């Protein structure tokens, strides 16, 4: 038996960590594929209302967003509800142009399928929302979506 060395003299073998980066990369790719980047910098505070009968909004490339809510910087902009289009505050008068631009950016074949998603804070008064809706009707943008959170535990 003296021919064989006892393993006790050696250090314990290390765990091979060479495949660790691969595992992390797989995680990384999963996240890269499954998520969408934040598109607009929100300048209004939005807490969406809850609803039970919500549907998923499909085809995100065909959705344009209109945000309505109190400005985040209330010291500067006051507490009245404001409309945000793209990355800046807007008024109701800017909606037709916004609709026209949204149409122009899309392929002609899908222009009639554009949905305008209204992301409105739940404490907003309906006046401004009605104005926006009237303006959308005038611009013939009739497909709209009232963005809501899904109510998880509806009270029966």
């Amino acid at each position: 038996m003296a021919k064989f060395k006892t393993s006790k003299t050696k250090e314990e073998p290390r765990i091979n960590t060479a495949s660790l980066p691969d595992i992390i990369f797989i995680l990384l790719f999963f996240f890269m594929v499954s998520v969408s980047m934040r598109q607009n910098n929100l300048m209004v505070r939005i807490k969406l209302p809850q609803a039970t009968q919500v549907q998923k909004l499909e085809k995100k490339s065909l959705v344009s967003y209109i945000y309505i809510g109190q400005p985040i910087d209330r010291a500067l902009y006051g507490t009245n509800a404001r409309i945000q289009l793209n990355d800046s505050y807007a008024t109701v008068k800017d909606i037709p142009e916004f609709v026209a631009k949204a149409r122009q950016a899309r392929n002609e074949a899908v222009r009639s399928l554009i949905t305008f998603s209204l992301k409105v804070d739940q404490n907003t008064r309906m006046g401004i929302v009605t104005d926006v809706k009237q303006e959308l009707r005038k611009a013939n943008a009739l497909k709209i979506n009232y963005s809501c959170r899904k109510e998880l535990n509806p009270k029966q």
Partner: protein
Amino acid sequence: MARRGAPEINAGSMADIAFLLLIFFLVTTTMNVDTGITRILPPLPKNKNEKVDVKERNVLKVLINSHDLMLVNGKPATVKELPDRIIDFMSIHPNNPAYPQVREKFIPALGRKVLMTKGLISLKNDRGTSYKMYIKVQDAIAKAFNEMKDQAAMKYYGLKYDQLLDPEKKKVINELVPIRVSEAEPENVGGGR
């Protein structure tokens, strides 16, 4: 290790680099799916003076004032009971004057005429109504119509609307249960701003 000729590059920090990237993506991204209630707005009337004549008995008037209180056909009501009221109102009673009129419509896919109600939900809100309340009411209306679609799907296909896989069948159900909601032209009804 020393037995080999070329020394290996230490790949231990590779994991750290990947971790940094991973954390970057975790922080900058949002996972939420957009959900909401989709509606088609009515087109603007071409002629402003054109009045659509709808009989009184065919309309269920839902009014919300600036204090978020609701009237259904002139009487106070709660959001909770609204779906049942709508389902009851839209049900078909050919010879009962308390319910809306009915009409016959030929549905090609079913190969026969079907009785349809002429009932209509008229939703009117004030400029001072809160969006939260408005969505609650829209939600209640959507609930009622989804329920009716389920009923129709059960009747004709023995499945719930969501369980129908054939888009043609869904189309038939949508034709049988059209979402008849009219939103009045905006006006100040309850003293809001």
